[in-house]
């Protein structure tokens, strides 16, 4: 009898994406780190209050600096931040993290960096923009029926997307051809993602899980460049003027 019950399951996994600041360290001097962190937090106390943060030890690791991860966590905690993940680092540091209940974060970069010009907390460099850019996927050939393309960032298609094809992106989707297949932007929950295309004849469009099927997409707008975005949980299709 309980099988057909309509109440939601007690436990359910859902996929979701969050923006979490990443603290990149280039020094193992805990005193200096503490001092600079406090200065940083003072600049925007509301922003940093109880903020989750992922620690990136890539630089420290590269320079082979010795750094006790447990001590580092204490310093960060004192500044009012919560360490929710560690990236890179050596085996010992990773083991310390696990022991402290902090998961290893090996996901591709898609994160907000703390903007700082200090020498200790790494400032964004041109390199990082390139790194972020590399998550943009560019397709120059038509996407055929039955093909499925997934981009961890933005997706740019310089040709048409055939009926029966499916394109997915965690970021925005740009189609500089006729879009006949299915296009899903912001598939990890980014409600700011948009779809742009030069001719909308899609079977389905979706942003962050909010979708419209072709019957609901008004035919009148075909053959004009449009953008699709989310406004109060509703998909808005608008010509690009």
């Amino acid at each position, binding site marked *: 009898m309980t099988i057909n019950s309509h109440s939601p399951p007690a436990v359910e996994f859902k996929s979701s994406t969050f923006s979490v600041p990443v603290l990149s360290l280039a020094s193992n001097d805990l005193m200096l780190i503490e001092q600079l962190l406090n200065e940083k937090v003072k600049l925007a106390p509301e922003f940093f209050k109880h903020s989750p943060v992922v620690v990136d030890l890539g630089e420290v690791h590269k320079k082979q600096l010795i750094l006790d991860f447990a001590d580092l966590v204490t310093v960060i905690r004192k500044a009012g931040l919560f360490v929710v993940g560690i990236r890179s680092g050596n085996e010992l540091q990773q083991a310390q993290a696990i022991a402290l209940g902090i998961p290893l974060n090996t996901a591709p970069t898609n994160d907000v960096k703390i903007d700082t010009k200090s020498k200790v907390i790494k400032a964004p460099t041109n390199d990082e923009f390139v790194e972020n850019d590399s998550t943009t996927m560019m397709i120059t*050939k038509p996407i055929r*029926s039955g*093909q499925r393309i997934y981009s961890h960032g933005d997706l740019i298609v310089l040709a048409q997307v055939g*009926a029966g094809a499916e394109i997915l992106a965690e970021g925005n989707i740009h189609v500089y051809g006729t879009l006949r297949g299915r296009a899903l932007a912001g598939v990890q929950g980014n409600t700011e993602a948009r779809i742009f295309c030069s001719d909308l004849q899609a079977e389905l469009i979706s942003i962050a899980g909010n979708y419209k099927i072709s019957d609901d997409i008004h035919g009148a707008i075909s053959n004009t460049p449009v953008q699709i975005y989310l406004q109060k949980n509703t998909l808005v299709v608008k010509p690009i003027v």
Partner: protein
Amino acid sequence: MARIIVVTSGKGGVGKTTTSAAISMGLAKKGHKTVVIDFDVGLRNLDLIMGCERRVVYDIINVINGEATLNQALIKDKNCNLLSILPASQTRNKDALTLEGVEKILEELSKDFKYIVCDSPAGIETGAHLAMYFADDAFIVTNPEVSSVRDSDRMLGILSSQSRRAERGEEPIKEYLLLSRYSAERVKSGEMMSLDDVQDILSLHLLGVIPESKSVLTSSNAGTPVILDEKSEAGQAYADIVARYLGENKPHRFIDEKSGFFRKLFGGK
């Protein structure tokens, strides 16, 4: 090194075998040593269209199983001695076709022939996959109707992701469109998709339009590839296609209604 051409479509009955027979004959007639392989195991009919069904002793499965040599299985065409046919088996199960077996056969044929034409079965299963896997060029045979165009689109997706060239990250298979059974009259009356409608979806390099023509049936009943019927429009269309494929510059024909003759007569454009 031989050039391997796959004639494929996804959808059945669109004219793959007709095309394979015609273009392999056309290439041979142009002086290139050519072999055409029937990959339609269990439904072989290339040998019928080539008029060699009575001379089939061994087939591709026999060669793969080591029961016959390639030379024993190859049949010389009766009209052109530069053309050979490797027939499919009518009795065996499709699964007898293996990737390694096909690779070995193609390797051996490559030493001897300039062009290897692979007549693919319909669908996207094993036979069709093996026919296209080693290809350098793909002739996509499409009829001007929605389901055929859609299946061609699907096949193009498979070509670009599941071929040997794709898996090795080599230069992709060259894809060509052969729009077959085209009727300019029916396009004009709105009953049939036009070339533009089809290209809107496929955007492929057009090798030629083959008009709907009674001579196709007459020729296959007679067991001669339609390209040998030089008076027929379909025969001429295939001759153009072979010429274009070999790099000749031939204007496209059979796309518009037959008013061209009068226009030419009066010197108009």
